[in-house]
């Protein structure tokens, strides 16, 4: 058997044996409901797209100021057009 290759590597075997996987309980029953699975996908954690911006204090301040500045800018623009 191919696994016999590991007999020469007892330290590696020991390390690999430590890698146990906990199987989720919810998997115990086969789900044919694709909608439910889609909802679970939507609820799964995702990366924050603005993480880099709000992780620094200047970025966080900019996040607060930019909407206000944009609103003022758009208002001025509208006033100038009319």
């Amino acid at each position: 058997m191919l696994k016999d290759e590991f007999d020469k590597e007892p330290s590696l075997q020991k390390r690999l044996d430590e890698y146990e996987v906990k199987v989720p309980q919810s998997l115990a029953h086969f789900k044919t409901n694709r909608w439910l699975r889609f909802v679970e996908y939507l609820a799964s954690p995702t990366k924050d797209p603005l993480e880099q911006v709000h992780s620094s204090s200047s970025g966080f301040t900019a996040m607060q100021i930019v909407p206000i500045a944009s609103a003022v800018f758009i208002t001025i623009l509208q006033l100038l057009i009319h």
Partner: protein
Amino acid sequence: MKSNEEWIEAYKKGDIEAFNMLYHNLYEMLYCFLFRYTREEQLSMDIVHDTFERLQKTLHSYDVEKGTVKSYLFQIAYRLLINKLNRRKKWHSFLPFLVPTSNTQFSTDEKLAVQEAIAKLPEKQRGVILLTYYHDLPQEDIAQILSIPIGTVKSRLYNAIQFLKNELKEDFHAEG
């Protein structure tokens, strides 16, 4: 007790309970393989379900003489996994924030080291080592699952063992 091959034959004849038995016998093993490969709980769960859905659809193309049910399911799961990962890579280049973060299950430093080492393995070698060590599959089955020649299985296994030994070198020294 019936074998998986007997259950699938029963399912082919319309026995719904036989499908449940197959699922019960094999879902854990598939999940463990997928989780060790990706370290993503949700993705692994989805692929386990997709694999059994695919089995339902392609049931009649399964031939017991070509291999075991276990190998057949691994083959389906691996192909689904590679397709999903390739699709994700494309999406990731357009919309990086849509890719879910991995839900890792680290508990101790030792486990962390081996999980990290396996994750660092090149994908082509990772599949070989997982199927060999954790699922004890014969060389022919692994070659079929990964769609590679038999000789390549052995060379990839050798390279994977060397890579892991090198990655976990400090752990071995600390132990000794």
